[in-house]
């Protein structure tokens, strides 16, 4: 069973997305900010990382910088999109950038699978 680390400071997002991800067959772990995510990654490397941008203590972008060398397939899922957030995230190694209001969990997973498949 592939493992997924879902990082979001909003409990409801973790619950709503998490249930859908688990139903899709992922073993899901959760973190509420970048610092918790870093600790979770150090304890056990996930197969897939989905991370929010705006979080307290450590933001998604800072987390991306810190884990870049680990080459974990990482996707950003955010509510707030600033002018350069998408470019910044992709430049930091994210494989995809999605807006929560544009995509449901099942479509998100399909897109992640497509982007994760080597061409």
């Amino acid at each position, binding site marked *: 069973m592939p493992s997924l680390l879902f990082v979001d400071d*909003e409990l409801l997002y973790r619950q709503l997305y998490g*249930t859908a991800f688990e139903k899709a067959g992922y073993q899901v772990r959760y973190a509420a900010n970048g610092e918790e995510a870093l600790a979770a990654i150090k304890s056990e490397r996930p197969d897939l990382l989905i991370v929010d941008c705006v979080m307290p203590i450590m933001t998604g972008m800072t987390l991306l910088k810190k884990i870049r060398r680990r080459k974990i397939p990482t996707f950003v899922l955010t509510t707030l*999109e600033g*002018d350069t957030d998408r470019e910044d995230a992709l430049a930091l190694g994210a494989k995809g950038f999605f807006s929560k*209001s544009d*995509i449901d969990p099942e479509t998100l997973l399909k897109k992640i699978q497509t982007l994760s498949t080597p061409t």
Partner: protein
Amino acid sequence: MDNQPPKTFLSHPQQARLAWHDAKKHATLLRLLEHNLTSGTYGPLPDQAKDALRSMGLVIETHSLLIDALSILSRYENQALTWNKTWVEGERCTESIAQHAGAALAGRTVEGQAVDAQLEGDPVLLPYLTYALVATSARLSAQGNVSLRAKYEDGRTTLELALRGHDLPAIPDQVIATACTLSHTEEPWLAVSATLAAIEAVVQTAGGTWSIKAKSPQEIIIQIVI
């Protein structure tokens, strides 16, 4: 104390951004919950519950549309709305339009086509324009079908939406002027008005033009050129 200027709460761009982020977050949470319930994530539902959720889905979608529009209008009126030109993937502007307006377009056809792989425009506001066009047109008619084309030609990005049906507004070119007064008080017209005003604000900021014309009694074309 008498000479103190009035307090402002949303005029600082960062404060306004976070306030709208919070409003949008709650709307998105509702959409996600509705999606999970409808799609059976928590198990099967009785038909009556599914019908109620479909109605709720439209309300939530309209709510989200209104938040987006008011956020843009707030930034525009505070001179904080900017159009940053870059290359935007055409597919990003057209691929998720059915999802944005799915509840309003239930049972109708919606098609999106990016004629060119890259369009020139703001990476956030250009996709917003395609979404706003589709969501608005879905509410201008109860039965009409929607098709959207996005192309880049002669240094300009053009978004062209065709709304086809038998119940279209009689005088479409007055829709913009009427809507931008935000004078409607009945749902879903308030969301339509606010969204059309937001489109106007974005198009003005981008230095573009837009129009709504009746090609025939059964077809309206809305075109934005930036």
